[in-house]
């Protein structure tokens, strides 16, 4: 599992950090903090392919560079812009309280690590935290999507969920064509771009970003 770069920092330490960032995201009460956490996790995930690859490879380096730029700069930039444009308050409004979501996230993390023992993994993946990390991150994304009121914090939840799926994808990094990776990243960026516009629309129509307004029917 150890790649050409792996001697310096163990990959599991990086994944452990990403799992820690999950919990930071669940506990953060301010939108800028949530966005920063999400993008830090994206950057962390972006550099992971370099650790995984057995030798230097242009394909892998390009994927890493694109991910770091996309998740570290472009997407948080778009979100901050949307936040500034609609000039909303910076508090995250939880439906599921911070303590409870932190406990749920920790439970999901522990459960993911425990459940991995029973999964039929390839022998080279059995000692790695990749699969539990991916499951924990997906669960965190779900908790944020369900447990937060404002559209922007839900977008952050969606992006963390995507980070989890990306972690799963790392298992197959060498056999996935560059085009697929690039397509996924482009989709996510366009998605955030579109959501930025939607956020603006929601704000203009309802004077708030509370997505619960969208469920009420009106004439």
């Amino acid at each position, binding site marked *: 599992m150890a790649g050409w770069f792996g001697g310096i920092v163990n990959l599991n330490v990086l994944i*452990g950090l990403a799992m820690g960032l999950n919990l930071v995201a669940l506990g953060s009460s301010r939108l800028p903090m949530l966005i920063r956490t999400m993008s830090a996790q994206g950057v962390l995930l972006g550099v992971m392919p370099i650790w995984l690859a057995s030798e230097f490879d242009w394909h892998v380096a390009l994927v890493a560079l694109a991910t770091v730029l996309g998740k570290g700069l472009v997407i948080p930039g778009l979100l901050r812009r949307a936040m500034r444009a609609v000039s909303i308050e910076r508090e995250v409004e939880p439906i599921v309280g*911070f303590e409870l979501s932190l406990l749920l996230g*920790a439970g999901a993390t*522990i459960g993911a690590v425990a459940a991995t023992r029973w999964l039929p993994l390839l022998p080279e993946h059995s000692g790695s935290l990749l699969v539990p990390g991916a499951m924990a991150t997906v669960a965190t994304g779900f908790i944020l999507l369900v447990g937060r009121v404002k559209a922007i914090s839900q977008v952050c939840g969606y992006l963390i969920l995507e980070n989890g799926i990306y972690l799963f994808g790392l298992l197959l990094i060498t056999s996935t064509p560059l085009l697929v990776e690039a397509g996924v990243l482009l989709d996510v960026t366009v998605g955030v771009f579109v959501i930025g516009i939607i956020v603006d629309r929601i704000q203009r129509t309802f004077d708030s970003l509370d997505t619960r307004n969208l469920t009420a029917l009106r004439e």
Partner: protein
Amino acid sequence: MNDVLDFVSRLVWWLLLPPLLPGLINKVKAWVAGRRGPPVLQLYYDLARLWQKRVVQSHVASPAFLAGPAVAWTAVLVAAMLMPLGPVGTALSFRGDVVLVLYLLALARFALVWSAMETGSSFEGMGSAREVSFSVLAEAALIAAMLTLSVQTRSVSLATMLAPLPGAGAVLLAAGLFTVLLAENCRVPFDDPNTHLELTMIHEVMVLDHSGPPLAVILHGAALKLLLFSVLLTESVLPVGAIAPLGGMILLLAGVFTITLGVGLVESLMARFAFRRVPLLLLTAVLLCVFALLVAWQGGSVGS
């Protein structure tokens, strides 16, 4: 004869060193703020002054008002005497003494809360309620930390279980224990020792009506508890027990002073948290210790 000498020197360490720590914290705070600050030995002078004053007691208070501080101080001192001091080990060690230490700390808190409730003041009732409710989570974190050390070293005796964890577990445990140290000793993100607004005070409001020698005992007990937690944190992060006696003691002292410096810096650079956010921070400490426990457990079952 040697045993007696050992016991007395330990007692001297645990009785004379503690009041230095709050003095150092105040010096660090003054230094960061650009003030000259009170002398480092200020608490020693305060204790000497308080000891000569007489006790003022409320009409409604029962003798427990005076017994509380005495019981609390004795409990903390006994807990401290059970702690190993780096290379010189413990005076008294038996299987499961860590549980006794945890319960003695709980007993000390109970005695202090009882004594605060004896005054019949509603402010002190509020302070006690806060102290007790925060300590529920802080205690859970402390127990998780002790379990981690116990799982790592496969022992339930403080003399052998205080050894540093390898790798990431050590960082998690250190962060968790430092947060517990701040919470248990009523330092800044949880409580402000300098505040004088009864509505926001926690520990300080509990001792508002104490005076004279009982107050001196409470202050000394608080400093003693700070030293106890600093020693605990140092020994569960640094391998103090494994090196030569002199070097080990110097390392232990250096660790304790570094923690004191850290507390002072936290206190200078952070504001106190709002009450409703304190449980979140304490929960973080619990989770840090629980994850350290998991790392220790995984490490134990996978290899070595």
